[in-house]
């Protein structure tokens, strides 16, 4: 039963995926299982980084795919590890490993059956793979990946791409053999190249990769667990109010009103080069351009002051005014700075890919990075 391909779509079963990194990963997993999952995930992360090919040209091209794709991959990657669609043996073991400290090497005895072939259509909001991604998986060398210099968050997710087996083109559904999918990225092939593998070579890998992304908790998926947005904000709001101590009633109902907002979503925003961060209420904006303007307003002065102080505080007023130039191009990569955010899964994402409401529901904090630092993630 578990080995069956879904017949529904009439697809042939996909060929078996190659086991590219069997032993090392298992080792990493086995080591982690006894105790601190956090620790093992760090190790795993390192392990994966080692395997990555830094600064691949092809990769930087593909990087124009942007965070959406990264996001998609990540989601897809999650799907590898979390879903019952795959050989359930692996599945058990993987989760088992993380949450219940049980040995996972017996997972090694299972093959990953690529019935992942007829995987459900997926999107950035789902955890199943897209057919197209499977078809188009290029050999591993062409994938790689994100340079190890990128921020840890992205590394986590990207490095999991290492586990890409060579899934041949036959793994496609008949209806989806055509490559020309509607696609925002440069080319479908590249886009698919980004995609995580249909399934990792061994369940140990899945466990490993998943842990590297997800820390200790199960990875959240869009729309999962099924609780309404107002409940999600409950936790952050209640914990933040506890941090603030008991708000005395004057503060709560004071003249500085809680900003008009749907749920009062204040997130931290830090800017490179500015030691003091700000907080911004996302529900006060309804679109990315508005947010971008707000960021500009928040930091323009601070940035100028920073420059001033690093220049020895010797700028005269005129120079200071000149220095206070607008921070523009935050969203399209055209400016000196680029806006990124950290989402609820801890991954760093480029701002602007997903619909605004989706962004608001997953964002946890914002960062304004120098575009040169973000060059790998920036759009064309």
């Amino acid at each position: 039963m578990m080995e069956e391909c879904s017949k529904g779509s009439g697809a042939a079963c996909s060929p078996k995926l190659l086991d590219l990194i069997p032993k090392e990963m298992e080792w990493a997993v086995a080591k982690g299982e006894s105790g601190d999952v956090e620790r093992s995930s760090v190790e795993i992360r390192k392990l994966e980084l080692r395997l990555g090919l830094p600064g691949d040209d092809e990769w930087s091209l593909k990087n124009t795919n942007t965070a959406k794709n990264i996001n998609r991959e990540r989601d897809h990657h999650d799907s590898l590890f979390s879903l019952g669609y795959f050989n359930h043996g692996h599945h058990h073991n993987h989760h088992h490993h993380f949450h219940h400290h049980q040995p996972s090497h017996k997972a090694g005895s299972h093959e990953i059956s690529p019935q992942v072939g007829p995987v459900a259509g997926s999107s950035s909001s789902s955890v199943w793979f897209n057919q197209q991604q499977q078809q188009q998986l290029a050999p591993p060398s062409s994938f790689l990946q994100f340079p190890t210099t990128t921020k840890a968050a992205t590394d986590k997710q990207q490095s999991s791409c290492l586990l890409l087996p060579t899934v041949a083109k036959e793994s496609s559904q008949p209806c989806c053999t055509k490559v020309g999918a509607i696609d925002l990225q440069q080319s479908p092939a590249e886009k698919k190249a980004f995609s995580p593998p249909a399934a990792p070579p061994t369940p140990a890998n899945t466990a490993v990769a998943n842990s590297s992304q997800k820390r200790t908790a199960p990875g959240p998926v869009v729309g999962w667990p099924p609780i309404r947005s107002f409940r999600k904000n409950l936790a952050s709001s209640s914990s933040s109010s506890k941090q603030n101590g008991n708000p005395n009633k004057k503060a709560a109902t004071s003249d500085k009103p809680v900003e008009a907002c749907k749920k009062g979503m204040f997130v931290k925003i830090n800017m490179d080069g500015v030691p003091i961060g700000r907080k911004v209420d996302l529900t006060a904006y309804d679109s990315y351009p508005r947010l971008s303007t707000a960021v500009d307003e928040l930091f323009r002065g601070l940035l100028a002051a920073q420059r001033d102080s690093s220049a020895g505080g010797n700028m005269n007023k005129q120079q200071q005014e000149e220095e206070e130039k607008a921070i523009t191009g935050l969203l399209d990569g055209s400016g000196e700075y680029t806006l990124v955010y950290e989402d609820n899964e801890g991954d760093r994402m480029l701002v602007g890919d997903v619909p605004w409401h989706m962004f608001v529901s997953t964002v946890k904090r914002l960062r304004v990075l120098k575009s040169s630092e973000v060059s790998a993630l920036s759009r064309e």
Partner: protein
Amino acid sequence: MDLSPKQSSPSESTRFPDEVLERVLALLTSPKDRNAVSLVCKDWYTADSWSRRHVFIGNCYSVSPEIVARRFPRIRSVTLKGKPRFSDFNLVPDNWGADVHSWLLVFASGCPFLEELRLKRMRVTDESLEFLALNFPNFRALSLLSCDGFSTSGLATVATHCKNLTELDIQENGIEDLSGDWLSCFPENFNTLEVLNFSNLITDVNPGVLERLVSRCRSLKVLKLNRTSSLDRLQRLLVSAPQLTELGAGSFSEELTLQQHAELKYAFGLCKNLSVLSGFWDASALNLSAVYPACSRLSFLNMSYTALQSPELASLLPHCPCLRRLWVLDSVGDKGLEAVGANCPSLEEIRVFPTDPFDEDMLHTVTESGIVAVSQGCPKLHYILYFCRQMTNAAVATVVRNCPDFTHFRLCIMNPGQPDHTTNQPMDEAFGAVVKACKKLKRLSISGLLTDLTFKYIGEYAKNLEALSVAFAGSSDLGMQYVMEGCSKLKKLEIRDCPFGNVALLSGLERYESMRSLWMSACNVTIDGCRSLAREMPRLNVEVMKEEGSDDCKADKVYVYRTVAGPRRDAPPSVLTFSGL
């Protein structure tokens, strides 16, 4: 259509005059009964049409407002549900539809005496609210649950123009909260309010205005404050309105002096009729003790907005001997649930929500022990919603052995596809036990690692099942086929991230017209499959929501529903409609 009395038919000497029939039928209020009545014969259909006062429309696109207004010209109350349930979890695009405005336009001329409107998951704009307030002179009750598209300005127009408003119930909506001034829009002599729920809103309302309003409205029974309402205000309101039956307290975290605490406790003591309590954001243990005097008649306690710990819950529960429904966060832990089992023999419903669904450290959690403890102490349990991070087959089997009367069993093991953590097996046997033991089961939500066996059990045993929610489960098309074949009373099926393809989709052909709707997202269904379905079943609307960048042939999200209104014309470009018509 006129009610012509007595069509002559000599043999029918015992025939009821229509007026009498209408009177009798008026006593039947349940929609199901009314529907049955209307099918008896033409006269009864007519009598029902004229006497129907309330219409429940579970899917706003299953029928058109014109049809409704034409058939039921004298309705006073309408309940409308719009978007698929998964829109609550961001799976449905914002501009999907379910806008109430077209309904209001038709009702304004067709059913101008409309008094009550209850909307769930509909799009409601400020313009619509204003239109409502201005065009329905008898309008009395507005309830908006999980709706979006409006702001507090819209509420202001309702408050300003609805002279006889008795109910304003704003819950869990995507509302643009601009200011609390809307409350001040109630006229100074306005005093008819019976239900006021603004717990969803953030901005503070003018305290003086609220207090005056509450003291004027002597019939006020339900008052649910928002988070920014202080304890001081609450105390004054309680003193002013001890007749309340339902109270939503605001923030409960302030530090009180001894005197203030005593005053608050006294105020709660005045409320002899409270049966429902909710709110209590950030409640501290000390402050909670002020609530005890009000709990003796409490039947529903909703503590799901505050991360209560187990000792606090354990102290509170003994004061609530009549408790029938309890909602908490998982911060109470298994120990808290043991206290529930020990103190709530009459409990019928429990819902345990996750404090922090993305909690990386897993500090707050309930496990299988908690749910078992509750089932041991609460044999009358028939509704459970349980979010947890681990579960075992044995525990679930124990639970349903202790409580075989479940009508609603919703278990969410938060990590998708997670097996039984002690045996490493799928959770098939857990849900098998549920459907075998609980003959009255109407609603089931499954989670964890599940194979087709779960669905085999469901199809075989869950004969009364009406709503099924499936995520990350199953091994093949067979899973869904089992359900479609076996569950003859199925009304709502929602599926996400399962390996069900076109064969599975088409296996339900016989079923869909007797169901309200089917949702399938991130499964293996293709556009061609949807086309086939639409062709075979012309009275279904088959809608596909395409994701950006997905393959042309993929049906990323599929929503199928029966309708007598034909394909809808307000679908956004991202929604493809297939119709056999």
